[in-house]
């Protein structure tokens, strides 16, 4: 057996460790680079630790770095992303919960077909809706606003959240709901008294999934929000790809870590649910 072959075991561990280093390397390089001075970056080695740990790049990335014409750092765009992500996640999750409840527990004639119709929204390349969406947001007067972005994320996120909750509620035994109906409980009572109390885990999975998706989105942000209301991913891209003056790699890296911190934090705290969300999202195929 493999497990008694010590050489084989050692090789397995060595391979796994090597892969782990490969995965950690970019994070290490980003962190160390963000604490280096520009001279240190130019003369030193990418893999070396900073000669002197300096926090200047972080201050600059947060409050002073130039993203295009403006030079207010990532600060404002970070809050844009917060203001976009929080309502979009909450609304799409709540909608997904009641939708999933209907398509699993209150199936009616044609409800399966309607659910399949909804699911198509998970598969389309969003490029195919960008042009009319831009037009509509313009007509509604919410082009280039955070409100517009929230609307877009809710509209295209609800297909996923509905799927999450549907796949969760479908595992709840039908008898539970049937018994409650015989006892005279109605639509909302059953949802509130029977299903909501057991929905904790799926809410966590769904919120984490939506949070990661929406926070990390770039396509909708770059198309529907220019200038002041752009989310942090767009601002980061502008910062890194503006080619005026000296390239400040340390500031770039600090800004990238700032943009990544919220989702990384969620991953560290609730990694278990994060993985479950990924696999649940995968079941959809």
């Amino acid at each position, binding site marked *: 057996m493999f497990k008694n072959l010590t050489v084989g075991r050692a090789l397995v561990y060595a391979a796994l460790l090597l892969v782990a280093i490969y995965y950690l390397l970019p994070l290490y390089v980003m962190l160390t680079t963000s604490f280096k001075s520009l001279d240190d970056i130019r003369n030193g080695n990418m893999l070396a630790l900073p000669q002197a740990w300096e926090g200047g790049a972080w201050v600059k990335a947060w409050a002073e770095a130039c993203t295009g014409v403006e030079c207010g750092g990532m600060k404002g765009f970070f809050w844009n992303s917060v203001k976009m992500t929080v309502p979009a996640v909450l609304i799409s999750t709540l909608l997904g919960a009641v939708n999933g409840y209907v398509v699993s527990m209150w199936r009616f004639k044609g409800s399966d077909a309607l659910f399949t119709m909804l699911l198509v929204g998970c598969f*389309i390349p969003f490029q*195919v809706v*960008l042009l009319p969406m831009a037009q509509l947001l313009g007509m509604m007067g919410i082009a280039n606003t955070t409100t517009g972005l929230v609307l877009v994320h809710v509209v295209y996120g609800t297909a996923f959240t509905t799927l999450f909750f549907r796949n969760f509620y479908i595992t709840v035994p039908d008898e539970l709901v049937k018994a409650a109906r015989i006892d005279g409980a*109605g639509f909302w009572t059953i949802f509130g008294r029977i299903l909501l109390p057991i929905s904790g885990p799926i809410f966590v999975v769904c919120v984490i999934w939506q949070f990661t998706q929406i926070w990390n989105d770039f396509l909708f942000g770059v198309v529907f929000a220019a200038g002041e209301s752009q989310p942090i991913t767009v601002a980061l891209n502008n910062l890194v790809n503006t080619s005026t003056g000296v390239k400040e790699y340390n500031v770039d890296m600090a800004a990238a*870590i700032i943009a990544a911190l919220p989702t990384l934090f969620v991953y560290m705290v609730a990694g278990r649910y994060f993985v479950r969300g990924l696999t649940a999202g995968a079941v959809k195929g």
Partner: protein
Amino acid sequence: MSASANQGLRALADRWLPKLVLSPTLAASLIFVYGFIAWTGWLSFTESRLMPRFEWAGFVQYQALFENERWWTAAANLGIFGSLFIVCCLVVGLLMAILLDQKIRAEGALRTIYLYPMALSFIVTGTAWKWMLNPDMGLQKVMNDLGFANFTFDWLVNPDMSIYTVVIAGVWQSSGFVMALFLAGLRGIDDSIIKAAQVDGASLPTIYRRILIPSLRPVFFSVLLILSHIAIKSFDLVMALTGGGPGNSSDVPAIFMYQFAFTRGQLGQGAASAMMMLFTIVAVLVPLMYMETRSAKRV
């Protein structure tokens, strides 16, 4: 109100409430998904440039698209990136899942490390790799400092190689996720099958080759589905890493669409390229989904 009237009201509510609750989302889907696809489709058959125009113009936009060399560069890049990205993710992911399945100590910690890139935005990933593959100060310099004076790594600025840097960063970001799916699949396989094979004297590699990997078939299809979806839609990673450059050498359809529709004011071309992306997704996903349902039925 009498008890029976109350009951009647409740029955009525139970009949209509589910439909009422579902209707806003359905309406949104009809407008924002189906209606918008139709709108884009119609636009791709007009001569719209800066402003949308709605007179039918036949296939002019598609003709222009197919005569555009840049479009073919983008399509070829998608082919190169897509196939390499998918193959590498599958191989690396499966290998890692098998290795992790050997009752490894600290499996949890290792899994956390392999999977954290999935929490990052492609923009962050692109920014990090852009810096590391930088020909002046990145990997090349590290190798030179180590004594390999002639080592050069200029893929990021080399038009012939730039698309491969996207593969490197893409595989880094997504292979951990593939590993997680395969590992979950391996753990889901009934232990008794493995025990029986061991009793029959099958070696571990044989067990993997003949029993475990074949029973991962459904997982394999889901993974393929997700990866091809990611590949066809890939936009942010390329934008952050190469911006489609140098020149147009690492252009992909998503960037082509974005630039024609939103920075060059060629709405018709943007719409036609978006429709081509939709067709590609349908052409790839529908057979895969068909095979997936068939293999799921058989198992």
